[in-house]
C-alpha cells in the first residue's frame, strides 16, 4: 500500500516537473477554455436575464472541451519516445502508474479551473460561490476527478489507435453524460438556492460515478496492459 501511494506520487511529481518546464498542457487548456467561455457568450444578447440559467452549462462545456484537449496532450507526451512503455516495464503496480496519471491530469484540470472560473465569473457577472461555497467547490473537485479517471483511461486507449486524438472525445463524451449533467445541475441548484438538500442526489450521483469507475478500472487495468 505504501509503495502504491509512493508510485502514484512519483508519477505526479514527474508530470509536474515536466509541466513546470514546458507549460504546454496547462497553457493550451487555459486558453482554450477561455475561448469557449467567450465564444459561447454569443448565445445570448448582452445583459439578457436568462443568462444566469445557462452559465453553469457553458462553464462545464469549457471544462469538458479543454479537458479533452489536455488529456490528449498529456498522453501524447507519454507516448512520444516510448515513455509509457518504459514506465510499464518498471517493477511497480501498473494501476499505480495509471492512477498517477489520473491524479496529474486531475491536478492540471483543477489548476485550469482555478484560473478559468474566476475569469468566467467576471465575464458573466455571476458569483457561483456566493450561496454555497463548500458545495460548489465539491462539485468542481468530484466532477473533475470523475472526468480525469475515465478521461485518462480513454486517452491511453485512443492514442494507440490510428486516428489518435480524434478518438478520445468520441469515446469519452457519451460516457461522461452523468458527470456533465450532475455537475451542471448541482452548480445551478447551489447558485440559485444554495440548498445542500436539493443538490445532494446530484452530488451522490457524481460520488457513485467516481467510486464505481475507480474500482472497476483498478480491477481491470492490469489485464488491459499486460504484454
Amino acid at each position: 500500500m505504501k509503495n502504491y501511494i509512493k508510485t502514484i506520487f512519483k508519477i505526479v511529481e514527474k508530470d509536474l516537473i515536466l509541466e513546470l518546464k514546458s507549460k504546454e498542457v496547462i497553457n493550451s487548456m487555459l486558453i482554450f477554455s477561455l475561448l469557449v467561455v467567450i465564444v459561447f457568450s454569443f448565445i445570448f444578447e448582452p445583459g439578457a436575464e436568462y443568462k444566469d440559467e445557462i452559465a453553469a452549462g457553458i462553464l462545464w462545456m469549457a471544462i469538458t472541451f479543454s479537458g479533452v484537449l489536455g488529456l490528449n496532450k498529456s498522453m501524447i507526451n507519454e507516448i512520444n519516445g516510448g515513455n509509457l512503455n518504459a514506465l510499464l516495464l518498471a517493477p511497480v503496480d501498473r494501476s499505480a502508474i495509471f492512477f498517477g496519471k489520473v491524479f496529474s491530469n486531475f491536478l492540471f484540470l483543477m489548476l485550469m479551473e482555478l484560473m478559468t472560473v474566476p475569469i468566467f465569473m467576471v465575464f458573466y457577472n455571476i458569483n457561483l460561490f456566493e450561496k454555497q461555497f463548500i458545495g460548489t467547490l465539491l462539485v468542481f473537485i468530484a466532477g473533475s476527478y470523475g472526468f480525469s479517471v475515465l478521461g485518462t483511461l480513454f486517452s491511453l486507449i485512443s492514442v494507440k489507435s490510428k486516428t489518435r486524438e480524434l478518438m478520445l472525445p468520441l469515446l469519452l463524451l457519451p460516457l461522461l453524460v452523468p458527470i456533465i449533467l450532475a455537475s451542471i445541475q448541482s452548480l445551478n441548484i447551489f447558485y440559485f438556492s444554495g440548498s445542500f438538500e436539493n443538490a445532494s442526489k446530484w452530488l451522490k450521483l457524481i460520488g457513485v460515478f467516481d467510486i464505481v469507475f475507480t474500482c472497476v478500472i483498478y480491477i481491470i487495468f492490469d489485464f488491459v496492459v499486460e504484454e
Partner: protein
Amino acid sequence: MNSNEKKIEKIIDYLTLILISIALYFAFIYAPLEKVMGAIQKIFYFHVASAWIAFFAFFITFLFSIIVLINEKKIYDEIASSSAEIGIIFCTIVLITGPIWAKPVWGVWWTWDPRLTTTLVLWFIYVGYLMLRKFVEEDDKKAKFSAVVGIIGFIDVPIVFMSIRWWRTIHPNVLQKGGGGLHPDMLKALIIAVIAFTFLYLSMLFKRVKVGLLEDKIKYLENKIRN
C-alpha cells in the same frame, strides 16, 4: 465448424423464420386495434422487442468483454464485437421506430425523456466501440481496448439512466405493474415478438461470428502468402 454446430445453426434459422411469421400474425391480426392510437400502435411490438434485443446484445458484449480480458481466445472477442454490431442495428431500429410512433401520439418526433436519451447515449457509446475497433491495428490491442469500452460502457448505462431520469420523464411505463393497462392479447403479441427477436438475434450472432472467424483466417493466409 463441426456438424453439430451446423445443425444447431440450421435449427435456429428455421425457428427464427417460423417465430417471426407468428410474431407478425400476432402483432397485425391477432392483437386488437388500439382505440386511441389506431394502427400506429402496432409498431410498439417491434419497437419494444428491438429495445430488448439491443440491451441484451450489449449485455452479451459486456459479458464476453470480461472473458476477453481473462482469456485472450479469438472467438470471445469475435462474439463480443459481433454482439455489439447487432446491438447497434437493433438500437438504430429502436431510435427510428420510436419517433415514427411518437410523432402522431405525442405530437413530437423526439423528446428528452430518460429512456429515449439513454438509448441515444447507448447508441453513441457502441458506435465509439465499433469505431475504435476499426482504428486499432494490432489484434490483441484491439480485443483488449474494445473490451474496456464494452465493460465501462455497460456499467455506465444505469448511471446515465438515473441521471437523465432525475432530469425529466414522460415515456409510457408499459413494463411496470404487470403490463400497466396493456390488453392481454397485446401482451401475448409482445411476448411472442420478443421471443422471435431473440431467435433472430441468435441466428444473426451465429452468422456474424462465423464471418468474423473466416475474415481472420483470410487475413492469416494473406500474411502467410506475403511472407
